[in-house]
C-alpha cells in the first residue's frame, strides 16, 4: 500500500478514537510526520500499526497512555530514531521546483500588468536581471524562513496540556505581514543596477509558461 493510501485510511480510522486518545496519538502523528528527512512510507506504516494497536486496546478499555507510556514525546523520539532516512524523498527537486514556480508566477503576473497597464499609461518593459535576482532571493529566503518558522510553531504546540492556538495564529500572522512588507520594500527600494534589456508582455508570458512547465516537470521527478 502506498503512503498516500495509508494517510487516507489513517484519517478515516482516527475518527474512531476517543477524544483523549486522539489528542495523544494525533500529537505523535504530527510530530513524526514533521520529520521530513525520514522515509514517508515507513513512517506511515508504523503510524498505521500504532493506530490499529490503539484501536484494539481502546476496545479493551485501555488508553494511549497505557500502551505508549506516560511521555508521548519521548516515545515518538524513540520511533523517529529507529525510522530509516528517506532515500527517494528528494529535497532538491522540491525546492528548485518551488523556486521555478515563483519565477514563473512573477513573469506571468508581470506580463498581465504590462498588458493591462499599458492601455492606460506608458509602462517601461525594461528589466534589470541583477535587480530581479536580488528581489527574487529575498522572496525565496522569506519563503524558506516561513516554512521553517511555521514548522517550529507547530512543533512547539505539540504535547502540551493546553495548546494556545490563538497565540500561534498571531505569531504566524505577524510573520506573514513582516515578510510581505519586506518583499514590497525590497522590490520598491531596490536600485536598478547591472545590465538591462527589454522584455515585452508576450515574451514575459511565454517565458513564464515555459518555466512553469519546467517547474512542474522537476516536481514530478520527486513522485
Amino acid at each position, binding site marked *: 500500500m502506498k503512503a498516500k493510501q495509508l494517510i487516507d485510511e489513517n484519517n478515516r480510522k482516527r475518527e474512531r478514537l476517543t477524544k483523549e486518545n486522539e489528542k495523544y496519538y494525533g500529537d505523535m502523528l504530527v510530530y513524526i510526520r514533521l520529520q521530513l528527512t525520514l522515509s514517508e512510507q515507513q513512517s506511515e506504516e508504523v503510524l498505521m*500499526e*500504532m493506530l490499529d494497536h490503539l484501536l484494539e486496546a481502546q476496545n479493551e478499555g485501555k488508553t494511549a497512555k497505557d500502551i505508549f507510556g506516560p511521555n508521548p514525546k519521548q516515545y515518538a523520539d524513540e520511533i523517529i530514531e529507529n525510522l530509516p532516512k528517506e532515500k527517494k524523498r528528494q529535497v532538491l527537486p522540491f525546492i528548485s521546483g518551488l523556486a521555478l514556480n515563483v519565477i514563473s508566477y512573477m513573469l506571468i503576473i508581470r506580463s498581465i500588468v504590462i498588458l493591462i497597464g499599458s492601455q492606460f499609461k506608458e509602462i517601461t518593459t525594461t528589466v534589470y536581471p541583477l535587480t530581479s535576482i536580488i528581489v527574487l532571493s529575498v522572496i525565496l529566503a522569506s519563503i524558506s524562513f516561513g516554512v521553517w518558522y511555521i514548522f517550529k510553531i507547530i512543533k512547539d504546540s505539540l504535547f502540551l496540556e493546553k495548546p494556545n492556538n490563538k497565540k500561534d495564529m498571531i505569531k504566524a500572522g505577524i510573520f506573514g505581514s513582516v515578510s510581505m512588507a519586506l518583499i514590497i520594500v525590497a522590490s520598491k527600494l531596490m536600485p536598478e543596477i547591472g545590465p538591462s534589456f527589454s522584455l515585452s508582455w508576450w515574451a514575459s508570458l511565454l517565458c513564464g509558461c515555459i518555466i512553469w512547465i519546467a517547474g512542474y516537470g522537476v516536481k514530478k521527478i520527486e513522485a
Partner: protein
Amino acid sequence: MSFRSQLLKGIMDGCVLAVIEKEAVYGYELSKKLQDIGLSDVSEGTIYPVLLRLQKNGLIRGEMKPSESGPNRKYYYLTDAGKEALETIALEWKQVFLPVHSLFQRRSNNESKATD
C-alpha cells in the same frame, strides 16, 4: 530505569525474534504473545521501536497483507540474517544465564542451610 526493565530492554530483540521465528505476526499479535509468555509488564508500545530497528538492520521484514479478521496488517517475517542473529543471542543468553543462575542457586542453598 529499574533493573528489571533494563534487563528486558537488553533481551527484547531476542524475544521478538523468537516469537516471529515461530510464525509471522503483526504488531498487536506480537504484544499479546509476549504478554502470554509472562512478559506482562512490558508496555505494549515498546515493540514498535524494536520492530523498526530490527527491520532497519535487516533481521526481519514486514509485509502488508489482509489479516484473518479482514483489514490489512503488517506481518513480520524472520530473514536469514535474523535467524543467525537469533542463534547468536540464544547462545550468548545461555552463556550468561547458566552461570548466573547456578551462582544464585548456590546462594539460596546456603541461605536455606543457614536457617536450618
